[in-house]
C-alpha cells in the first residue's frame, strides 16, 4: 500500500501526468540537466569498524566487518535522474492509472514542491517522496541495487572511524536543521558541500536526505554480527532476514547534526514517502 498516494486521487493525477507528458511531447523545453549517472566510487575490499560503543544502544557493540569491493554512487539519486525512470513508467501506464513509483507531492513545501514539476525546477536536488520499494525499483532499472547498511557505513566512515564523513570536528559541512549551512528549511542540490565528502570521496552522506539502505532494521543485529566476529570479522552482512522497518542512514535537512553521524541508525516503514528520505545506489564489483 502506498500511504501517501491513495488510489482515489489517481484520476486527477493521471490526467495531470498525461497533460505534463503531452506538453513535454509537443515541444516545451524541459530544462532537466541530467546528473551524470556514471558517478560511481569504488570502495576497496577490506575490514572496517562498524558501530560505536559510546553512542546509541543500537550502535553497540563496535565490531569488525569485512566487505568485498563494491561501487557506491558519489551522489544521491537526483530528481532529474529519477525523472527518466518515472517517464518510462508513465509511458507504460494507461491514462487512467497512476504510474508506479511516482514520488509524493509536497504542496505545502514549495521549496520541494510537486512531482513532476520539481524535476524541472530542481533537477539536481535529491529525489524525495520515494518509498523503499520505489528506490529499489529504480536501482533495479539501473542494473544496480541499494547499499547494505554495512556498505553505507563504510563509505561514510572510511577506515579511520570518523564521526562525520569529513572527520570528527563539528563543522557545517552538511545540510541539517541548523541554519548556518546556507540551506534554511530546504533541500540542497547534491554535491553542495564538497568539504563534507567522506574519506572515499562520497558526497552528502551527512544531512540533506536520509538514505534508504537494503537492510531490515534490528536494534540488536550488531550483537549477532559481533558474536560471529569473535572468530573472524563478519563477511558482507545483509541485515536480519525479516523485519518491519528498513534502515535509513545519514540524517537530513530536518535533523540536528548529532543524528547525521556515520554510525547513527534510524528506520522507517518501507512504503512511507517523506520529504526527508532519498537514496543512493550501489553495485557489486562482480
Amino acid at each position, binding site marked *: *500500500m502506498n*500511504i*501517501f*498516494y*491513495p488510489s*482515489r*486521487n489517481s*484520476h*486527477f*493525477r493521471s*490526467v495531470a501526468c*498525461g*497533460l505534463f507528458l*503531452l*506538453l513535454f*511531447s*509537443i515541444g516545451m523545453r524541459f530544462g532537466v540537466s541530467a546528473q551524470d549517472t556514471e558517478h560511481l566510487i569504488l570502495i576497496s575490499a577490506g575490514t572496517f569498524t562498524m558501530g560505536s560503543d559510546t553512542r546509541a544502544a543500537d550502535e553497540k557493540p563496535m565490531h569488525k566487518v569485512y566487505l568485498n569491493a563494491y561501487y557506491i554512487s558519489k551522489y544521491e539519486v537526483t530528481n532529474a535522474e529519477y525523472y527518466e525512470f518515472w517517464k518510462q513508467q508513465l509511458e507504460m501506464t494507461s491514462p487512467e492509472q497512476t504510474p508506479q513509483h511516482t514520488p*509524493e*507531492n*509536497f*504542496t*505545502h*513545501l514549495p521549496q520541494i514542491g510537486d512531482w513532476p514539476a520539481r524535476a524541472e525546477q530542481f533537477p539536481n536536488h535529491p529525489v524525495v517522496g520515494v518509498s523503499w520499494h520505489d528506490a529499489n525499483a529504480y536501482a533495479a532499472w539501473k542494473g544496480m541495487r541499494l547499499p547494505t547498511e554495512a556498505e553505507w557505513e563504510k563509505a561514510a566512515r572510511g577506515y579511520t572511524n570518523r564521526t562525520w564523513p569529513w572527520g570528527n570536528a563539528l563543522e557545517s559541512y552538511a545540510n541539517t536543521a541548523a541554519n548556518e549551512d546556507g540551506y534554511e528549511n530546504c533541500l540542497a542540490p547534491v554535491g553542495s558541500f564538497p568539504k563534507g565528502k567522506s574519506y572515499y570521496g562520497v558526497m552528502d552522506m551527512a544531512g540533506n536526505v536520509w538514505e534508504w539502505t537494503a537492510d531490515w532494521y*534490528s*536494534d*540488536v543485529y550488531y*550483537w*549477532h554480527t559481533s*558474536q560471529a566476529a569473535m572468530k573472524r570479522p563478519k563477511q558482507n552482512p545483509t541485515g*536480519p*532476514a*525479516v*523485519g*518491519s*522497518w528498513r534502515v535509513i542512514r545519514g540524517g537530513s535537512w*530536518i*535533523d540536528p547534526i548529532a*543524528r547525521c553521524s556515520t554510525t547513527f541508525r534510524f528506520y522507517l*516503514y518501507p*512504503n*512511507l514517502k*517523506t*520529504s*526527508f528520505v532519498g537514496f543512493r545506489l550501489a553495485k557489486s564489483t562482480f
Partner: protein
Amino acid sequence: MRNYLTLVILLILCLPSFGIINEKSDDHSTYVQHVEQAFILMFQGDNLGAISAFEAALAIEPDHHEILHYLGMAHAQEEFWNKATESYQRSLALMPDNIEALYSLGVAYFRLDRWTDAVPSLQRVIELSPQHARGHEMLGKSLVKRRRYAEAIPILTKALSLTPHAAGLYYELGTAHLNLKAYPEAIENFKLAIAYGPTGYAEPHHGLGTAYFRSGDREKSRVEMQIYQRLQKEFAEYERLTRLTRAEPNNLEAWTELATLLMNQKNFAKAVSVFQKCIELAPNNAHFYHGLSRAFMSLNYPKHAAEAARKAVQLMPNQAILYNTLGSTYAMQGESQKALSAFRKAVELDSDEPYYHLNLSRLYQGMGNQKLAQEHHRIYEHLLSKQK
C-alpha cells in the same frame, strides 16, 4: 496540431470532475502535511504535538497501518498506554502480522499489567522473527509475571543469547530460578545482574539475599539485604529530590542535595547536568564548579574538568582543594608543569593535608625527580599517621 487537439479534448473531458478531484487532492495534500509535521515533532521529542498531527492525518485518511503504529508509539512515549494499545490494535487490524506493531502491543499490555494479554502478541513476534531479542525479553518478563517460570527460562535464555550482558534479563532469570527453588542458578544469575547492571541496581540484591536465605546462608543473606535497603533508601531519596526539583526548579538546596547524592552513587553523567543547573542558579559559587570538575574527571573528560576547576579557582583563589583538583585535571592531560604548579599551590595553602603531598609525590615521580617524590611521600605518611 494533433497534439494540441488532444490536449483540448482532454481538458474538456476532465473539467466536470476537476472540482471533486481537486478537493480530494487537497485533502491528500493536507494529510501529507500532517504526517510530515508529525514526524518532525516526534523527532524533536514533542510527542503531544506529534499525536495531534498524526490524529489529524488519520482523520483524513484513516486506513494507514504505519501511521496508526506511529501514533501508538507517540502515545507510548507519553505513557498513555491505553491509547497506545488502541492505536496498535487498529494498526494490527489492517496488517495483522506486523512484527513491530505486535511487539509494541505486547509492551503496552505489559505496562498496563495485562500480562496475560501481552503473551499472545509477543509469542507471535518471536514466531515471525526468531531473532527478535526484545520480543523474547518481553515475553520472558510477561511469563515471569504470570508465574509461568519454567516456560520463561528458555525464552529469557534465548533473549540473553541475542543481547549478552543484559542485567535485566539475568535478574528475570534469577527470579524464575528462585521461584523454581533452583537456588544455585538463581544466585548465579542475580550475581550477573549485579555485575552487569547499573550502579544502584537494588532488586538483584534482594533476590540474591532471598536465594541465600532459602539455601541456608543467613550471613550472606543479611549482607545482601542490607545493601538492598541502602540502595532502596538512596533511590527513594533520589525520587524525592527529582520530584522536588521538578516542582521547584529554582530550589538550589534541593539541586545541591541531588548533586551530592548522584556523586555518592557514582552517577557522574547525571551529576554533570545537575551541577550545571546549580551553576545556572548560583553562577558565583565555586563549590558547584568544583563538583562539576570532579564529575567530568570521573567521566574521563579532563579538558572539561580543567575548565570547571579553573573557574572554581578564579572564584575562590584561597581554597587548597580547588588547586588540588585543578592539578589533577592537568595531570590527567599530561600537562605536568601546570599540574606541578597547581599541586604546589595546594600544599602552600594547606600543608597539613596528606593527599596533596601524595599527589605531588606521584607527579614528581612521573617527572623523574625521585628526591622530591620521596620527600613528599615521607610527609604524606607522616601526616597520615598523625591523622590516625
